[in-house]
């Protein structure tokens, strides 16, 4: 046991800025460092909340002049005429909600179907049956194929989310619009009385935008729904099979209801994503400030309005655009908060089980 004085000597020699040394009680420098580090982590964490507050405040602050000038009339009126200083974003709000809802319907139908496909392991079964016919199902390498294929499928669907939005817009412009134009114009000629088909598809419009938008939100919905379906306790599934239910009777009667909170949360988050989507819509929705129900007519969304108007906005127009941005922020924040809350309740429920 070294004497006290030599211990102090060793401590002084080794101390200083040496965070790696732990075989002595922490020196003052190290305690200070630890304290400072903890404070830093805390500050960075709090920064996230402050960031959201700053985001909202900055946009609201810049929107103030327009809010004072136009009040709530801004949200109700339909004319967007910067020269006559008449601003109204009702067509854009409608366009945002309309395109997102339609995309949600299509996207969640396909998304939940893909989630069911993934969680049931259909692909693995098909590959397994294939391997059985060539008697390779127990092979050390080939036998792993069902798992690999399942993983591949899961990754492919996640890859849909990796494609940048502007590339989807490019593809939609040059591939989708020419492709659907003949069919849409035929529908218009035959069923023009039906409000959904009441105009011709001259180019960009609601339908191409909805098409691409649903592709973009599908991975979100699939991933979250799949997680929800997979986290249903196996005993529920086994119990249902034990009682004699067919595969789909268990899915529809047991699994979907149990996972419904999670699936709903995924759908709400997909909706939130659709609301905020900018680039693909700016290129595909046609940028026409009109209120329309027709699938083939051009329309406009809040995000696309912002993307197109911001670069040209003069000093007078910036507050107005910030006001529109504030409306978009409010809508997406509400939807995202609801979605996050629903998912948290669903996760909590699953953990409690």
């Amino acid at each position, binding site marked *: 046991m070294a004497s006290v004085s030599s211990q102090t000597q060793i401590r002084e020699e080794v101390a200083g800025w040496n965070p*790696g040394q732990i075989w002595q009680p922490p020196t003052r420098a190290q305690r200070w460092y630890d304290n400072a580090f903890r404070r830093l982590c805390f500050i960075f964490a709090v920064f996230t909340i402050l960031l959201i507050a700053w985001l909202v405040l900055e946009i609201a602050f810049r929107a103030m002049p327009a809010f004072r000038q136009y009040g709530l009339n801004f949200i109700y009126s339909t*004319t*967007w*005429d*910067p*020269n*006559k200083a008449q601003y109204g974003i009702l067509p854009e709000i409608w366009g945002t909600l309309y395109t997102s809802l339609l995309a949600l319907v299509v996207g969640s139908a396909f998304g939940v179907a893909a989630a069911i496909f993934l969680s049931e392991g259909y692909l693995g079964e098909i590959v397994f049956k294939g391997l059985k016919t060539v008697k390779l199902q127990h092979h050390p390498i080939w036998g792993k194929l069902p798992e690999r294929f399942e993983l591949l499928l899961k990754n492919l669907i996640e890859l849909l989310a990796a494609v940048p939005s502007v590339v989807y817009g490019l593809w939609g412009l040059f591939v989708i*619009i*020419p492709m659907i134009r003949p069919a849409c114009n035929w529908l218009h000629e035959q069923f023009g009385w039906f409000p959904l088909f009441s105009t*011709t598809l*001259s*180019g*960009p419009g609601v339908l191409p935008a909805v098409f691409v938008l649903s592709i973009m939100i599908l991975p979100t919905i699939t991933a979250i729904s799949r997680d929800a379906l997979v986290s249903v306790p196996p005993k529920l599934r086994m119990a249902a099979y034990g009682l004699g239910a067919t595969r789909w009777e268990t899915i529809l009667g047991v699994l979907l209801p149990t996972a419904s909170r999670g699936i709903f949360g995924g759908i709400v988050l997909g909706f939130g994503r659709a609301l905020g989507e900018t680039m693909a819509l700016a290129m595909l929705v*046609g*940028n*026409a400030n009109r209120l329309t129900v027709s699938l083939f007519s*051009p329309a406009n969304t809040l995000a696309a309005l912002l993307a*197109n108007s911001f*670069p*040209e*906005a*003069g*000093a007078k127009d910036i507050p107005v655009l910030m006001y529109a941005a504030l409306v978009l922020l409010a809508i997406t924040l509400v939807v995202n908060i609801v979605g996050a809350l629903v998912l948290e309740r669903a996760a909590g429920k699953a953990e409690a089980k």
Partner: protein
Amino acid sequence: MKIKYLARILGAFALLTLTACGEKGESVKLQGAGASFPAPLYLKWFKSYSASKPNVQVDYQSVGSGSGVKSFMDRTVDFAASDAAMKPEDMAKVTGGVQLLPMTAGSIVLAHSLKDVPSLKLSREAYVGIFSGKITKWTDPAIASANPDAKLPDAPINVIVRADSSGTTFVFTKHLSAVNKDFAKDIGVNNMPNWPVGTRSKGNEGITASLLTTPGSIGYIEYGYAQSQKLPIAVLQNKAGNYVAPTTASATAALASGEMPADLIAWVSDPEGKDAYPIVTYTWMLFYKKYDNKAKAKALRELINYGLTDGQKESEGLGYVPLPPEVVTKVKAAAETIS
């Protein structure tokens, strides 16, 4: 552990040296933004100019006249370009003064996508009606009467207008307002009017792209765009009643009917001559009268000189109209005031 520490220090040092070295050589970077109307010509000028003078870089973004003027007033660019010149109240807002110089001229054509009717004739009533939304089908009598032999499709007219704040739109609406009083009252002269019809596209480039991909459409673009993409162009009826196609000769005749005043802002909204093409305009570059960076001012003067001499030779090939010589002398004189 020590090696990582050393590596970090060396990396920081390298970064510092990288930022420090490079003071050698007076390199001038000029940033411009504005009209899409003359963009192909300007971009060609700037590239050839930068190629001949390696220490000068000129960057131009085609964002539309409105956006260019706004950036110019915010002082985020060194120069701007606009077909709508600049409003007097905006010019007053720029401290130190603004110098507008017309650098080239061009004609606005009504290009369309009716491949079967390459020389579509549009009377004054017809083309004003199309853009006011009053004439909606190609088979309308106003159009058919001027084109008795043409095979006009029984389809709606897809009008394509600008989505952004545009000098081209300003000149076009100025002309339409001069032709038709109702248009002047309802829609008026504007960079971004509230068009009653039409899908919107960004820039002259956007309208051209939409014309190429949308059947049965018509839109207003600068002649060079239509020429390069081989779009059929409508032959318009001028004030004298003749149907004139846009050519360098007809555009020059139209420009000649207007006087160039001392402030170098001239409009030819409805030219009188019997061979004049009805829709022509000058297009301006906007400069500050005083630059803090003298090297920039000098580079800009040389750039203007280039545009007025060698640049004019390239304009016709790209579909623009060379400036009349008397205008060139006036512009050269005014350019000297930039310091």
